[in-house]
């Protein structure tokens, strides 16, 4: 079981004061919480890297948590920010690797779970943007494959991914 909000807030306050023992517990709890938070939002193979990135961000930006406010909404905002950044990087990597279709296939169940977990933010996006991001970012299709599947041109797929990610970035704090 992961610690509750008051416990996490207390640990974070102690961490800001320099208590290393409290910080170790906090980071361990945050790691568990993030793994659960991201479980259906990223491919399992990328989970560890993303969690580590958020833990690093938590460390470097720990002064930005105000003890008069809740801890988990602060952590969730940082996690979403890093997640959107992660989606952008995946896209760039795929752009560079166009033509390489040897990536390991993920199970359909994992893909479905990943798709469902993003719906909460996706409800604010037009269907075509959601479709393009889901196919390319979650299911791992190439731009050409996504174009064939959706009937959108390759340019339209790229534009819809680009615009969708911009909107996701704008929704990081808003979408509850």
């Amino acid at each position: 079981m992961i610690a509750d909000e008051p416990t996490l807030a207390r640990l974070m306050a102690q961490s800001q004061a320099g208590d290393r023992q409290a910080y170790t517990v906090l980071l361990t709890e945050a790691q568990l919480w993030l793994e659960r938070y991201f479980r259906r939002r990223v491919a399992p193979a990328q989970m560890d890297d993303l969690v580590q990135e958020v833990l690093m961000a938590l460390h470097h930006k720990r002064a930005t948590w105000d003890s008069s406010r809740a801890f988990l909404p602060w952590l969730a905002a940082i996690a979403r920010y890093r997640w959107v950044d992660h989606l952008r990087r995946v896209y760039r990597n795929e752009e560079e690797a166009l033509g390489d279709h040897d990536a390991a296939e993920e199970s359909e169940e994992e893909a479905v779970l990943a798709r469902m977990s993003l719906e909460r933010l996706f409800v604010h996006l037009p269907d075509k943007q959601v479709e393009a991001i889901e196919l390319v970012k979650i299911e791992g299709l190439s731009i050409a494959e996504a174009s064939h599947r959706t009937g959108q041109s390759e340019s339209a797929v790229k534009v819809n991914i680009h615009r969708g990610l911009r909107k996701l970035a704008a929704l990081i704090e808003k979408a509850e």
Partner: protein
Amino acid sequence: MTMNRAPNPLIDALAEELVPVKPMTMRGGMAAVAVAVAVTLVLVELFHGMWQDAFAGAATPFFWVTNGLLAVLGLASATSVVRIAGPRVGNRHEAPQWALAAVVVLPLAAIAALLLGHSDESPLADRYGLECAQLSLAFSLVIAGTLVLWLRRGAPVSLAVAGFHTGLAAGALGAAAYGLSCPLTGETHLGIWHVVPVFAMALAGRFAVPHLVRW
């Protein structure tokens, strides 16, 4: 509370290098804004001199309305920027929008006065208009720099809003501070030339600041 699992070396490393930090609070951020505004007012006094007669009753009501609305817009936007530095799911940054809507009334009123024949001062024939706009922009830089530094220390996740509100805050507070030194009180001069720099700074902030504060 924590499940048994393989230790994460990163957690040990981060804990090892932990040092106490001073939390960034709203109070601290607003204090920084207050200092920047005070420095700006001193600079206006040093380089341009306040319009002392305004405080003796020479200014029109429109003078105080314009500078007052600009100050409110600047304060609302600066508060938003300070808050954005500490991210949180559930944050809303909407207060500046309403203050901005109120300020937009100023140029609209000036244009309406011109079109309806209530004013004969064309903004294009205003020989001091451009100078006032440039000085307003110049006097917004200290506040802009302060807010950007605050955001760089912080963890903003709404970068576009952060940039737009930084521009609004700096532009509006700079224009209000400079406005106290300008003896021209016509609605066209104030409504156009003292407000346009705010829009210019907001646009500049929207596109420049995200690059400066991304993390």
